[in-house]
């Protein structure tokens, strides 16, 4: 029983430890990073590049006042990106529009805060739009781990049979587990010796005395 319980715990721990490797929070999947994507851009920007970004920011900011689909615009200075929050369902349309119009430094997202924190790598950002698949796989793996552990526990538990009693004739418990080893069997045979009654020796001595008479 103890072995089954320890095995179940070990399986659960393996599932929990492996969760971070699978947990992912996607931010707006969709269009691939373009040819001139930020990840391929030169690390240093020229004055012209800064000016382009400034102009793009101002234009998108002005557009946001008229266009209700543009929820928010933010310039991320440490990565020189412009993050644009777009209403659900329009990410792809606006992403393609901004890429074509301004370049890949304009990033469409539906969560500016998360995009801003992930912006140094850009790998977590997309320049294209798409349906919002912000999805946390963590709970699925946890449920999977619990189900797997529980199933294993139940399967191993069912394999264990309960028997009425295993006891030698002298009261010694032979085994508390279902299966017993050869060593335990031999030990049980050894311990199950039957002692003859006391009268047997007396009877023998009487017969000997009778024979000697």
């Amino acid at each position, binding site marked *: 029983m103890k072995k089954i319980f320890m095995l179940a715990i070990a399986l659960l721990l393996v599932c929990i430890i492996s969760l971070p490797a699978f947990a992912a929070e996607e931010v707006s999947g969709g269009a691939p990073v373009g040819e001139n994507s930020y990840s391929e851009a030169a690390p240093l920007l020229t004055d012209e590049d800064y000016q382009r970004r400034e102009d793009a920011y101002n234009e998108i900011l002005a557009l946001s006042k008229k266009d209700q689909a543009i929820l928010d615009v933010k310039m991320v200075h440490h990565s020189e990106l412009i993050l644009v929050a777009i209403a659900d369902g329009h990410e792809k349309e606006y992403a393609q529009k901004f890429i074509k119009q301004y370049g890949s430094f304009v990033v469409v997202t539906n969560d500016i805060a998360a995009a801003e924190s992930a912006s140094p790598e850009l790998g977590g950002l997309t320049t294209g739009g798409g349906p919002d698949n912000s999805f946390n796989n963590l709970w699925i793996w946890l449920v999977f781990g619990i189900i797997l552990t529980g199933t294993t526990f139940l399967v191993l538990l069912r394999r264990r*049979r309960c*028997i*009425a*009693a*295993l*006891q*030698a*004739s002298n009261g010694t418990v*032979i*085994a508390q587990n*279902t*299966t*017993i*080893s*050869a060593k335990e*069997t*031999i030990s*049980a*045979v*050894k*311990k*199950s*010796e*039957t*002692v*003859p*009654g006391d009268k*047997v*020796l007396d*009877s*023998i*001595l009487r*017969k*000997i005395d009778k*024979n000697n008479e």
Partner: protein
Amino acid sequence: MTNNELRSRITALCTGDRTAFEEIYKNLSTPMYTIILRITQDQLLSEDILQEVFVKLYLSPPASAANPRAYLFQMARNLAIDGVRKRPQFIDLDDCENLVYLPVIDFSQKLDIDDALKTLSLMECQIVSLHVNGGFKFREIADILNAPLGTIIWKYHKAINRLRSHLSGGAI
């Protein structure tokens, strides 16, 4: 009690030493009675046979026997087999050596090793009892039972596995 110790006691017994006799009885009576009882399955008959063995031992000590221990157990075993043969039976007594005792199927009873031993054939029961309880080596058991050594070893392991299976409720 080893053969050397038994031999010294028998030597003393030849002079009528009751103390030596009682020492022999004290050391050998339990394993011998266990083996006899497992063959006969009859307590009274087993006690009679045990008495007969020790009376013969006292009256005619086997001083010249090379293996006095095996000699005594062989005598006990032969008397037990004869006792079983003489008992009224409804089976062919020629097959007594291969007699299989059917287990008592009563789930209200506790399982114990004696019930498990009943599932063995008579030969297997003797081999297991002589080896485990009597402390005999397989070669000595082969001499006692007048059977090949290989057969004795094979039957012993088969019997132990059967006991394991029975005691494990069939899980093995």
